């Protein structure tokens, strides 16, 4: 087959339909990645305009530009949009776009999940923007402290918009996290072991892993607060056994890792772009991998440093202070790795390098003020002042914006096939850099002079007038700088010089792709034996285009890419990816209906929407899989591998593992909240404890055991091709699980106090609800396997679906027992029949 014929064949398989149909059903990672980046940039612009309004208001004392009601919405939306709608989605988009190309793959592991995440992000953003247009935007600050955000003090819909809108968007973040983790671990070019991965993939792997366990605490916190607001269950109300600090713990348990979640991908860009700019391969690759793993781990042990002034005992503060200081070490290791690379090479001050220089300057300062803030006594003085505002902008703009800009300019030829204007780009850089420092350097002083955060105005005579005016002027210079950058990028896309295929002479695989990027990325996939697989000539690119690598063929019109063993990179399976579909947008729309129903208080509609979501999920799962045993396939280059349906560790199995990890983090956070309230909140022990029923608990236990055994029998029978016996096993397991769910409900009904009286009752009912929801989901899954057995989608070779369902079932059973124990054990004395 000639290169052109191969190209046409693959384009037919991987391309998308023309027109709106194509737009709405597209699951291609390049298109979705671009969409994420463009939409996130729009949110950056909106958030930036809000920032300009804030600076306009603060430029002079007693300004009458906006009042506190509007001002509070402005800064709340500025923070929320920049964090949730810009920073996270932007790097998700970049990672989605780049990762498969860097890893020598044709797409991400779950293309339809990417599309679902995209639509959730888009629809969730509409909720936030719609509320803002109506003047109903959230106004409690982007971290929404309770009780200010509780119903009593924010009676309007504003807080609900935040809680539901942001949670909806977070679904997209969690989807992306699972998607990216599994893609890095499983979907690489054969031969690419973990230690041969491009360094960017390591950064994304750690970041995505952090998101898997970082977002659930926030989702839990939002869920609890929304339940409190909607139904009066008092999780955060100190009058009824709740505690306002529970919100802060859960929020910052997410919120601090969030900072590193934003920083790490940007650092990954520095580690990728800097070596190319200085003409030397990265020094200390292993050190950097180690330091980002350490960083990812320790970032979960720092959250209390946002709460140094809340009255926590000083000994505990000292611990978190030391941890917060020490977390700087892995970052310094990276910085010295970059410096060593520069010293070993010949730095070229091309535009991406200029942005990396800006990153060094600004991020260093932000990191240093961060260490200062980690010192408890200083924190007591400057916490909640403009000093912190300045610090966090140094960290986030220095540590995220500048590397991202470096990345955009570095990959611009890859994204657009064009190069930008050399002078305009530099002008934009210097305006942004100067404007930024004028705005925020002086803001440290404003804070030290005593100006608190989030004040809509201030009196003259406090020494704050001139620093605020300077900040405001600087911010407008920065805004002009960003406008110049946008113009420069726009001109580059429209009229820029055409770029050669590998303009920076980089050595990573994304530069082996033709321009413009084909829908299938590479006509055949390479075998990777070094960290820098790309040669100076285009020999590799040519041989891949000619189909001489893996999977350079059209097999029955299937979308194929290589799946590897996680550590060694050995080819283990041919992954067959699903194509374009209406399911992602339909499911996202149904999910959106669920959130909208809660937002406007149509509580009867919410379960209906959930049923639709479940039905669509069933269809979604049913559209995957295979009904024929294939055996080992020819994968090209003389290699053979089975299709992923017949592999032991298919991407879907790992996807479930990480989904359940996120789910378990949610449950652990809930148990943490329970223990926190029980030990810290006033009004405990509660006036009325659970009086658990032995009978109901016994039925739950028996049903759980029955479900466990029946599923075990069902899976064994599937492996032995005894379909009838297997179906009976799954049917029995589903029935037993249904009984367990009903018994759990009865257990609650008979023995638990009302949820609205005291936080204890509220927490135990949420725990119970967790068990019931999971039991119902697992029941559906068991029924699904029973159905699949009959339809011929399960065979002794194709055991993926039963094995995935086993994971979910066993997790669910364990969770139900844990819930039962958590409710029953503290009240052990009050059990009754």
């Amino acid at each position, binding site marked *: 087959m000639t290169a052109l014929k191969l190209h046409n064949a693959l384009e037919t398989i991987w391309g998308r339909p023309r027109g709106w149909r194509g737009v709405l059903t597209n699951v291609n990672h390049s298109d979705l990645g671009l969409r994420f980046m463009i939409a996130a940039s729009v949110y950056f612009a909106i958030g930036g305009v809000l920032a300009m309004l804030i600076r306009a208001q603060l430029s002079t004392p007693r300004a009458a530009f906006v009042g506190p009601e509007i001002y509070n919405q402005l800064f709340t939306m500025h923070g929320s949009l920049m964090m949730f709608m810009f920073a996270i989605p932007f790097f998700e988009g970049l990672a989605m776009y780049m990762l498969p190309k860097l890893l020598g793959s044709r797409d991400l592991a779950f293309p339809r999940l990417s599309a679902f995440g995209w639509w959730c992000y888009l629809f969730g953003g509409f909720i936030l923007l719609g509320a803002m247009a109506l003047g109903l935007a959230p106004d409690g600050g982007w971290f929404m402290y309770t009780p200010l955000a509780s119903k009593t003090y924010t009676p309007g819909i504003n807080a609900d918009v935040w809680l539901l809108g942001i949670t909806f968007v977070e679904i997209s973040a969690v989807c992306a996290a699972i998607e990216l983790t599994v893609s890095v671990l499983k979907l690489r070019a054969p031969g690419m072991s973990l230690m041969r991965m491009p360094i960017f993939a390591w950064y994304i792997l750690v970041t995505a892993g952090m998101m898997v366990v970082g977002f659930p605490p926030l989702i839990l916190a939002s869920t609890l607060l929304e339940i409190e607001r909607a139904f009066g269950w008092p999780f955060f109300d100190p009058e009824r056994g709740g505690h306002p600090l529970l919100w802060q713990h859960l929020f910052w348990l997410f919120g601090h890792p969030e900072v590193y979640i934003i920083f790490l991908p940007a650092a990954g860009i520095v580690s990728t772009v800097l070596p190319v700019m200085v003409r030397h391969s990265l020094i200390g690759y292993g050190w950097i991998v180690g330091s980002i793993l350490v960083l990812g781990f320790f970032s979960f042990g720092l959250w209390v440093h946002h709460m140094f002034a809340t*009255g926590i005992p000083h000994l505990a503060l000292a611990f978190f202070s030391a941890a917060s200081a020490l977390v700087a070490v892995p970052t310094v290791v990276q910085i010295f790795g970059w410096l060593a690379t520069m010293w070993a090479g010949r730095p070229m001050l091309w535009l991406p390098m200029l942005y990396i220089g800006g990153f*060094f300057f600004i991020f260093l300062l932000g990191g240093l003020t961060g260490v200062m803030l980690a010192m408890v*006594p200083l924190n007591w003085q400057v916490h909640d002042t403009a000093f912190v505002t300045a610090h966090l902008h140094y960290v986030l703009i220095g540590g995220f914006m500048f590397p991202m800009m470096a990345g955009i300019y570095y990959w611009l030829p890859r994204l657009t096939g064009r190069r930008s204007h050399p002078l305009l780009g530099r002008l934009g850089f210097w305006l942004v850099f100067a404007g930024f420092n004028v705005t925020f350097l002086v803001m440290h002083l404003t804070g030290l002079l005593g100006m608190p955060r989030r004040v809509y105005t201030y009196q003259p005579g406090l020494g704050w007038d001139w620093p605020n005016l300077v900040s405001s002027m600087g911010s407008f210079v920065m805004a002009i700088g960003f406008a110049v950058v946008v113009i420069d990028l726009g001109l580059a896309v429209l009229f820029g010089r055409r770029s050669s295929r590998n303009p920076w002479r980089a050595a990573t695989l994304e530069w082996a792709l033709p321009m413009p990027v084909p829908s299938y990325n590479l006509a055949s996939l390479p075998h990777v034996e070094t960290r820098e697989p790309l040669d100076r000539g285009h020999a590799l690119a040519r041989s891949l285009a000619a189909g001489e690598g893996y999977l350079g063929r059209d097999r029955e019109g299937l979308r194929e890419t290589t799946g590897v063993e996680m550590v060694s990179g050995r080819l283990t399976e041919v992954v067959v990816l699903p194509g374009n579909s209406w399911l992602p947008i339909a499911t996202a729309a149904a999910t959106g209906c669920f959130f909208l129903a809660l937002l406007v208080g149509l509580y009867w509609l919410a379960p209906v929407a959930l049923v639709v979501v479940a039905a669509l999920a069933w269809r979604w799962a049913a559209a995957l899989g295979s009904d024929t045993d294939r055996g080992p396939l020819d994968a090209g280059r003389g290699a053979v591998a089975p299709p992923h349906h017949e592999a032991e560790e298919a991407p879907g199995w790992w996807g479930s593992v990480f989904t359940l990890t996120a789910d378990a983090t949610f449950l652990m956070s809930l148990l943490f909240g329970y223990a926190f309230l029980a030990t810290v909140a006033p009004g405990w022990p509660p006036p009325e404890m659970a009086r658990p029923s032995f009978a109901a608990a016994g039925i739950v236990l028996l049903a759980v055991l029955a479900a466990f055994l029946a599923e075990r029998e069902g899976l064994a029978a599937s492996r032995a091709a005894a379909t009838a016996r297997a179906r009976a096993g799954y049917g029995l397991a589903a029935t037993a699980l249904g009984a367990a769910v009903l018994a759990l409900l009865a257990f609650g009904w008979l023995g638990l106090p009302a949820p609205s009286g005291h936080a204890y009752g509220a927490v135990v009912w949420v725990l119970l609800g967790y068990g019931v929801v999971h039991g119902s989901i697992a029941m559906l899954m068991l029924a699904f396997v029973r159905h699949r057995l009959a339809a011929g989608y399960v065979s002794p070779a194709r055991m993926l679906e039963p094995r995935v369902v086993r994971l979910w079932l066993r997790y669910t059973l364990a969770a139900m027992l844990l819930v039962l124990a958590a409710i029953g054990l503290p009240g052990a004395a009050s059990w009754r029949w």
Partner: protein
Amino acid sequence: MSGDGDAGVGVAEDLLGMKRVEIRIAGPRLLAAAHRLAPAAIAAGLAAGLGGCAGPLSTLDPAGPAARSISVLMLVLLVLAALSFVVIFGLFLLALRRRRSRAVSQRLFLVGGGLVFPLVLLSVATIYGVVLGERIIGARERPALSIEARAERWHWQFTREGQGGSVTRRDILDVPAGRTVEIVVTSADVIHSFWVPRLAGKIDAIPGMRNRILIRADVPGRYGGVCAEFCGTGHAEMGFTLVAHDPEAWADLERGAAR
């Protein structure tokens, strides 16, 4: 405050040279030395033109021991940070001048620069911060007086038990100058934060909790206070005034309360 035989007892001139204050530091001599030198550096910094740092709410114009020792900590950290910045960004700028590839010592950069350099500086800073923090919360100190500060959107109620019953004032906090006072901070509604920048750090006013902070004004006068935690539309206007009275005025006040 009397020296209790701690390893380092530094006596420093007040910023304006008007009054002698003692700054006691328990812990390594190095830190004590830094503590002795730093006020001189502050004075030099002020002389160098940071006169704009004074202000009714300025942490850089401290008027009590807690705020003063924190401003010294701030300066020490600022110097350390500036040095680190010069080293690292200097290496970056110097590297930009390199025109030929050359071998570098990976160990020097990664172990020396990446591990040893930050670990030393961070350890010094952290120990300093923890020791100072212990001192400021005054675990061993018996305050002369306890006053309750109750935050309610958007004002403060300060209640003091006097000889003749309790006295409550709105947005005015009377304290005796030169004596350490305990403020017990609570809230009636949402979270607020009690902060008198020239005297001490802040402590949150949280419903359902009773937080305490020690505060002392060295000289009589009026000191501005603010609510530092965002608490809704009136947040910007939730200020108060701390009035530190000289001994006679304070005695009058106490007698007045008794009548």
